[in-house]
């Protein structure tokens, strides 16, 4: 029987119950209001089909599982019976369903059930569902508004027809699903413990907003959407989207731990974030983030065994859903002025002694670089007492590597401090103290490596556990720095007068890892406390907090999270009500609100997804800043910047940053080398073969990429076509010109000439025959006596060649001028000239062919005329009137004239072709000359020098950048060379074909222009200024456009 056909159940007798009225019906069966014994009202569900049919059998099977389950929010089952072979279920009677309530709200003009009320209902539901799952391993699998019944102010979950034991994978679910609400894994026949949560999320969205996450209508559509598509959460307020998206994750494991956790997350959504978003949200691949380690609620225990467990999701596609993203506050552009320009001189510069504390591995790299700079500046002076180092790390091995002899810029053991973690059991004696601030889960999950592995609380644990030792070492380093004997000694070594009773402490730490991020803030307060105890009158504590991420995704994400957590903690201490509570184990008392550890804090993003070498490169910028700040008059600049901020009443120790752009300055030697290379390249480019620098090692992109070459070719063809039109050197144009020349040989117009000839012929008084007329005209175009008769080669016994000579001269000159003119176009030069020669050659080849064809046609016509006349040789002329005779003569004459003109065109074209061949040979020779000249500019060490130069540390950066711009620079220089040198010498060809002196002059001019251009561009590369628009930054500076090239600049200057 089809489930769509209602059965007649009105006559069904359920013993002990009186069916009063039908409450509802569907594909499953009917529900009746029934009177039970004692006047009670109950609901009676009659399942369609006979009890042994599939549907009823399935429901019965489900009921077997549920009948023993008791929960206040599960609809209680009173009886389960087979009546007339039909399954009958008696339950308590509800007031209505959630669906009824929803319809009622919609009728009242609401989008759905008011949120608070709905969350109350769904909390009951979640409670019941979690009970089913947690206690009985069951999933309801048919959660929908109709099955959530309202009883009083509570919901009771009803209809257990699909209830399934998750452990039992044999039972098919096909046929009983409600596609609108079913989880994707249910469609695939593999429900999970999180399947009901999914349905609950769909239901929540619908009931609160009226919208569904999947718009499908048919079961097939909905199935596909649930399994593959991203939910449309646009009907929800932005604050809720993330929560619902997570509950709707395709992967059940990515959902909340249970339904209650989902509800709690909904309840936790900040009500300020519940402003409905009217604009639709883009459909997205919605995969909520991995939560396997971070449980959604406190009920779901954390498992921070290893950082790899935190982030094992490489899929960022979920981020396409804006509901997963936080809104970033918009910052208004600043109107605050920058500091006025300072005259930074050594005069009066008296730095304070310095203690540089590095925390963690990245800081170690910075400190190494800093020490390297010191040694470069001061030479190998040994330790400088007024500049103290203390490198702290939880990684003992990394530290010992830095102290190994032979290591460049190694540290003394007394300059390092290893704060190692211990095994969990070793903290047992002190656990009571530790657990006052440390969650016990961290202690129990100390990695076997005894390294923090990126876990911040473990970084702090290492510090607190070694607090006494740490304080001693810092105190010792500070004392050494400000010792009365160390100041003069430091001044003597450095040549800089240091001042006494003052100290500057710089704490460098990466806030992306466990060590630096975990202990840097405490260390700051400890240093502050120590300085206060030591009674140093002038102190300044600066923090250089670095953020970078590595290659591996899971550590990359952890690094971001760590940096964010660090910033949140730093922000806490900035708040008026936030204060450092002290530390019992180190004996440090609390600080008053407003007392900050750091006078200045710099937050520097080194880059993302950095390789180790890239991190080292980026760390160099920080070391450079540290060096400038501590030991050069640039300190005044930084002081002034900070003072300006302070004067503007900004909160103390607000976050700062800096950008550093380092470039080597080109030495004369390097500049000359580059100029030679550029000259070489330019000269070679004139030949059209400068696609790569000849050494083969340092490929430089061609100056004319194919698209540009095509563009040049088009330009060339257009110019050539224009010239052809202008000179009229098409077949028609040339034939017309030569026709005029031939006709001019007769001195008059053809008609006049012929009239005279005919008069002569008929002067004897007899009439002339046509034959005589033909012979008369033929004589005009005949060769002299004894000359082989070439038809059309002669006019009035004069060779056609000599007749057309003036025209040949005129046109040849014009064509040659055009061709050589290409040499003077920087974007064409030799290549353009040769191309135009070839183009003209082809053109004249076509002209020759066409003129030959036309000659053949005319020859045929002439032959026909002659044949006609000869067939009637005796026909008297008198038969023709003089007018008719004249017309015949003119017609024949014109044919002969045209034939002669075409013959002349062919001769002329032959001549041009020959001349073009000569021009081409000259150009080839010219090219050879150019290559020789280029070679003169590049001696045999040229390539090697360039290679060494380009890779050298000192100047490699600028050189590399300049060489990357060679194509552009070459074009610029070439244009200026044309204007300044070539034009004044009548053209490149003429200039190049001069004597040695002229050639040397050419080379010198080119080199001078190259040097000038390189100097200018080199200077631009060296000093790349922030644009005006970049000041101030409307948002915190982000990583530069090329995020992994931070040797040049750490932060992006917008614009």
């Amino acid at each position, binding site marked *: 029987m089809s489930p769509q056909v209602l059965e007649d159940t009105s006559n069904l007798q359920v013993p002990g119950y009186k069916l009063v009225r039908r409450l509802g019906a569907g594909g499953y069966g009917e529900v009746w209001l029934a009177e039970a014994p004692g006047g009670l009202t109950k609901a009676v569900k009659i399942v369609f089909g006979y009890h042994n049919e599939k549907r009823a059998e399935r429901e019965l099977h489900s009921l077997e599982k549920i009948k023993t389950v008791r929960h206040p929010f599960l609809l209680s089952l009173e009886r389960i019976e087979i009546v007339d072979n039909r399954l009958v279920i008696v339950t308590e009677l509800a007031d209505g369903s959630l669906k009824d309530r929803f319809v009622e709200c919609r009728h009242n003009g609401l989008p759905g059930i008011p949120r608070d009320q709905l969350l109350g209902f769904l909390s009951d539901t979640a409670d019941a569902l979690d009970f089913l799952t947690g206690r009985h391993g069951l999933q309801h699998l048919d959660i929908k508004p109709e099955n959530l019944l309202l009883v009083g102010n509570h919901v009771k979950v009803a209809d257990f027809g699909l209830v399934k034991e998750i452990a039992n994978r044999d039972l098919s679910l096909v046929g009983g699903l409600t596609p609108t609400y079913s989880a994707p894994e249910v469609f695939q026949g593999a429900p999970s413990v999180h399947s009901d949560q999914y349905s609950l999320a769909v239901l929540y969205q619908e009931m609160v907003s009226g919208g569904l996450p999947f718009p499908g209508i048919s079961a097939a559509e909905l199935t596909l959407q649930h399994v593959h598509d991203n939910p449309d959460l646009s009907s929800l307020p932005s604050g809720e989207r993330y929560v619902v998206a997570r509950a709707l994750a395709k992967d059940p494991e990515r959902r909340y731990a249970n339904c209650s956790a989902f509800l709690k997350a909904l309840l936790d959504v900040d009500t300020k974030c519940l402003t409905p978003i009217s604009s639709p949200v883009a459909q997205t691949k919605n995969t909520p983030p991995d939560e396997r380690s971070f449980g959604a609620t406190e009920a779901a225990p954390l498992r921070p065994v290893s950082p790899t467990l935190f982030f094992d999701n490489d899929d960022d596609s979920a981020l396409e859903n804006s509901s997963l993203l936080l809104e*970033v506050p918009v910052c208004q552009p600043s109107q*605050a002025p920058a500091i006025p320009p300072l005259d930074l001189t050594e005069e009066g510069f008296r730095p304070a002694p310095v203690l540089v504390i590095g925390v963690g591995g990245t800081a170690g790299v910075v400190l190494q670089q800093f020490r390297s700079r010191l040694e470069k500046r001061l030479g190998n002076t040994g330790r400088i007492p007024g500049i103290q180092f203390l490198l702290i790390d939880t990684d003992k091995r990394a530290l010992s590597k830095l102290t190994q002899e032979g290591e460049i810029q190694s540290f003394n053991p007394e300059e390092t401090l290893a704060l190692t973690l211990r095994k969990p059991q070793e903290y047992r004696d002190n656990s009571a103290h530790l657990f006052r601030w440390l969650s016990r889960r961290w202690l129990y999950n100390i990695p076997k490596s005894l390294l923090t592995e990126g876990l911040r609380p473990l970084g702090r644990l290492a510090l607190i556990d070694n607090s006494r030792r740490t304080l001693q070492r810092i105190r010792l380093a500070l004392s050494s720095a400000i010792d009365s004997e160390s100041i003069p000694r430091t001044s003597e070594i450095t040549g800089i007068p240091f001042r006494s009773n003052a100290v500057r402490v710089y704490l460098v730490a990466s806030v992306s890892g466990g060590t630096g991020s975990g202990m840097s803030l405490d260390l700051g307060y400890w240093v502050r406390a120590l300085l206060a105890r030591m009674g140093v009158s002038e102190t300044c504590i600066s923090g250089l907090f670095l953020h970078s991420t590595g290659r591996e995704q899971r550590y990359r994400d952890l690094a971001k999270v760590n940096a964010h*957590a660090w910033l949140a903690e730093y922000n806490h201490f900035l708040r008026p009500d936030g204060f450092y509570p002290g530390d019992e184990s180190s004996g440090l008392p609390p600080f008053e609100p407003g007392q900050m550890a750091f006078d200045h804090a710099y937050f520097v993003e080194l880059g993302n997804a950095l390789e180790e070498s890239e991190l080292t490169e980026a760390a160099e910028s920080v070391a450079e800043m540290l060096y400038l700040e501590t030991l050069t008059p*640039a300190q005044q*600049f930084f002081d*002034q910047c900070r003072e300006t901020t302070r004067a503007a009443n900004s909160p103390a120790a*607000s976050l700062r940053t800096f950008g550093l752009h*380092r470039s080597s300055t080109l030495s004369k030697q390097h500049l000359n080398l580059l100029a030679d290379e550029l000259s070489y390249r330019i000269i070679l480019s004139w030949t059209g073969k400068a696609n790569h620098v000849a050494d083969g090692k340092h490929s430089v992109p061609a100056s004319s990429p194919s698209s540009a070459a095509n563009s040049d070719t088009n330009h060339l063809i257009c110019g050539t076509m224009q010239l052809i039109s202008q000179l009229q050197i098409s077949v028609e144009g040339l034939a017309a010109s030569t026709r005029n020349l031939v006709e001019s040989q007769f001195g008059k117009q053809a008609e006049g000439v012929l009239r005279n000839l005919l008069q002569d012929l008929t002067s004897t008084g007899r009439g002339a025959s046509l034959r005589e007329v033909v012979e008369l005209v033929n004589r005009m175009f005949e060769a002299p006596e004894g000359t082989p008769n070439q038809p059309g080669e002669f006019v009035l016994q004069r060779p056609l060649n000599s007749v057309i000579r003036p025209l040949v001269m005129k046109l040849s000159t014009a064509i040659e001028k055009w061709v050589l003119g290409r040499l003077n176009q920087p974007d064409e030069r030799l290549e353009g000239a040769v191309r135009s020669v070839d183009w003209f050659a082809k053109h004249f080849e076509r002209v020759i062919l066409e003129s030959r064809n036309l000659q053949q046609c005319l020859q045929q016509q002439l032959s026909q005329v002659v044949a006609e006349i000869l067939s009637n040789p005796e026909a008297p002329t008198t038969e023709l009137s003089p007018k008719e005779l004249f017309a015949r003569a003119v017609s024949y004459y014109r044919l002969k004239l045209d034939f002669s003109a075409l013959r002349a065109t062919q001769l002329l074209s032959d001549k041009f072709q020959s001349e073009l061949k000569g021009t081409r040979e000259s150009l080839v020779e010219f090219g050879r000359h150019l290559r020789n000249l280029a070679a003169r500019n590049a001696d045999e060490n040229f390539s090697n020098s360039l290679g060494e130069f380009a890779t050298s540390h000192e100047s490699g950066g600028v050189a590399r950048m300049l060489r990357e711009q060679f194509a552009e620079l070459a074009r610029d220089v070439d244009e200026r060379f044309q204007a300044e040198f070539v034009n004044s010498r009548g053209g490149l060809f003429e200039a190049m074909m001069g004597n040695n002196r002229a050639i040397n002059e050419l080379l010198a001019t080119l080199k001078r222009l190259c040097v000038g251009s390189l100097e200018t561009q080199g200077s631009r590369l060296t000093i790349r200024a922030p644009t005006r628009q970049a000041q101030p930054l409307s948002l915190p500076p982000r990583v530069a456009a090329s995020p992994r090239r931070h040797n040049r600049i750490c932060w992006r200057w917008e614009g």
Partner: protein
Amino acid sequence: MVLPAEALSSDEVVRHRGRLGSEVSLLSWESSETIACCEVGDLPLVNVALQVIDARRDFQEYAERVHTRNDIPWQALACAPPTVEHSDTFTSTMVME
């Protein structure tokens, strides 16, 4: 801006100032490199913090679970008002060679 001492002629100073604007501070120093340094004060901390995590809500949730100590009532940054007035961000430039 730090300029190499040998390279700092008056012409170059004029050139650099011309290019970078009159607000730049110049320092002549023993250096083989030219260094341009831009110093920015009063960064909007909340923005920085959110950009660090690409404004990902899940990362913020994670961050709340990796605080160094649990005896301090840390506050999530997204919900907290910014502690620094964004409109007061300062930028200064120094060039050194």
